[in-house]
């Protein structure tokens, strides 16, 4: 299963990378004379054109760039925050653990999407603000899982032995705990990317994503809702793209889990 996922993710990366070569038209400029009325799929425009005369296929191809960039970058932010907090809580335990976990619990209670919307409203929509915002609201799950792993790893013999030999905490974490937590972290990163992709699509749908005219799949769906009577295909294709991307990462991640036989900690 992870092969299927890997192929999907790889194909997505290829599309994003080679977007200028693959896209038949410019995604930002009007290329068809269909201003005001989306055009149906045709030979020249396989997926049709939108209400501003732009080719849907090209927009979806270029949209892969934005989605992948935001998804991966936001996941990097999430992982940085989540892994740091999780490792610290699990390794140091005691008061540090309590404080960090209480803070995590409070953040978990706040509705992620609402928080994200509020932050974006404050920071003004833009690539950077989206990355930071998504990262800020998604780290809690990673933190919990990493903490559990760090907790159990810290109590294992090899860490206890290294500590007895006088290793300082930094070395213990860097040389012993973290490398052993890496497989888990990698899987969480993959699954986390599917989450950030969905969150980004949702924010774009609500109008708070990367601003136009940059093609963003979520925003394309939002623009399509106005025309759903006359041009339903406008809404179908970008959604399929999101579905493909998210499914790819999910398959990859769950394939890893099945292959390695991890248990249900990843919920």
């Amino acid at each position, binding site marked *: 299963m992870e092969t299927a996922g890997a192929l999907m993710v790889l194909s997505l990366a290829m599309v994003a990378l080679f977007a200028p070569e693959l896209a038949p038209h410019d995604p930002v400029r009007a290329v068809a004379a269909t201003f005001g009325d989306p055009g149906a799929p045709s030979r020249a425009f396989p997926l049709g054109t939108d209400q501003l005369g732009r080719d849907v296929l090209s927009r979806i191809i270029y949209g892969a760039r934005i989605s992948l960039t935001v998804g991966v970058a936001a996941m990097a932010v999430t992982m940085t925050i989540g892994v740091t907090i999780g490792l610290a809580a699990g390794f140091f335990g005691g008061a540090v653990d309590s404080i960090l976990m209480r803070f995590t619990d409070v953040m978990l209670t706040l509705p992620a999407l609402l928080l994200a919307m509020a932050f974006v409203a404050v920071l003004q929509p833009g690539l950077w603000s989206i990355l930071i915002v998504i990262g800020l609201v998604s780290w809690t799950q990673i933190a919990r899982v990493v903490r559990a792993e760090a907790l159990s790893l810290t109590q294992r013999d090899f860490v206890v032995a290294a500590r007895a030999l006088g290793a300082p905490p930094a070395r213990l974490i860097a040389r012993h705990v973290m490398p052993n937590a890496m497989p888990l972290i990698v899987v969480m990163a993959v699954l986390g990317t599917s989450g950030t992709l969905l969150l980004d699509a949702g924010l774009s749908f609500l109008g708070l994503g990367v601003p136009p005219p940059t093609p963003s799949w979520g925003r394309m769906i939002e623009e399509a809702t106005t025309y759903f009577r006359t041009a339903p295909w406008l809404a*179908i294709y970008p959604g399929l793209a999101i579905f493909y991307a*998210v*499914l790819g990462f999910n398959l990859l991640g769950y394939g890893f889990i099945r292959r390695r036989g991890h248990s249900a900690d990843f919920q």
Partner: protein
Amino acid sequence: MLAYIIRRIAFGAFVLVGTSLITFCIAFVIPADPAVAVAGAKADPRTLAAIHHELGLDQPLYIQYARYADRALHGDLGRSYIRRENVTSVILSRFPATAILALSALALSLLLGIPMGMLAAAWRGRAPDHLLLVVSLALVSTPVFWLGTILLIVGGLYLRWFPLGGFSGPSSLVLPTITLALGSAGYYSRILHTSLAAAMDQDYVRTARGKGLSTSAAMRRHALANAMLPLVTIAGLDLGGLLSGVVLTETVFNWPGIGRLAFEAIFNLDIPLIMGTVLFSAALVVAGNLAADLLLAWLDPRIRLGRET
């Protein structure tokens, strides 16, 4: 048992206080001056200063927070800048729509997810299991707003079985409920599958099967009850989340609920309403958590007695 309940409630209260602090801080970072919202952009500085003083905005932050918290505890969440209404009454008037949607969605997702999880666990490792895994992953990977839009197009436009959005009676409830429930169903089925598989591996189940009990009977009578526990916790958390308003679904279907309210508030930079909805959502999540914890304690004696699970 009582000690456990008290501890959980205390924890919930603590989380709520923390949430209110964070919400309060957010409100102060938002670039909108309440005095301008009240008096208009062309008001002269003295009017603005007067309004500041009247609203208590020239006090130190901690005093403002204390006053806010005090009023909040009495159920007063302030007045909306844009709507000129009491925040609490606006939220409460939109809550029933969200509550109905949330409860139906939760019921449907459990109705779909539990059998899926059971089937996958029963045929573990074989074709139905793999198929159901792919199906649940597909369900979880579908963007909610896209699914809603497609269902709206197919169900409302082509088949004309359902109204095109809005809350107008039972038939308008169907599409939003399905939209919300499918993703959760996939998620729940995975959780149940994993915990059921783990439960079926336990010695007591093997003993039962060794004594001649069939797989399905063993699952139903022994494993299922224990496997439900993680699901209860997650469903409780989800209920809180659902009740706080699923913005995306409510937007697609024009559902007059809290999620949509929060979205409008954020768009209009209506600070009291934003704070009110976030706080309300958090309170619901805490309540959902508490309910799940209590249910869990009732179901599993080991929890209320504080022993190892």
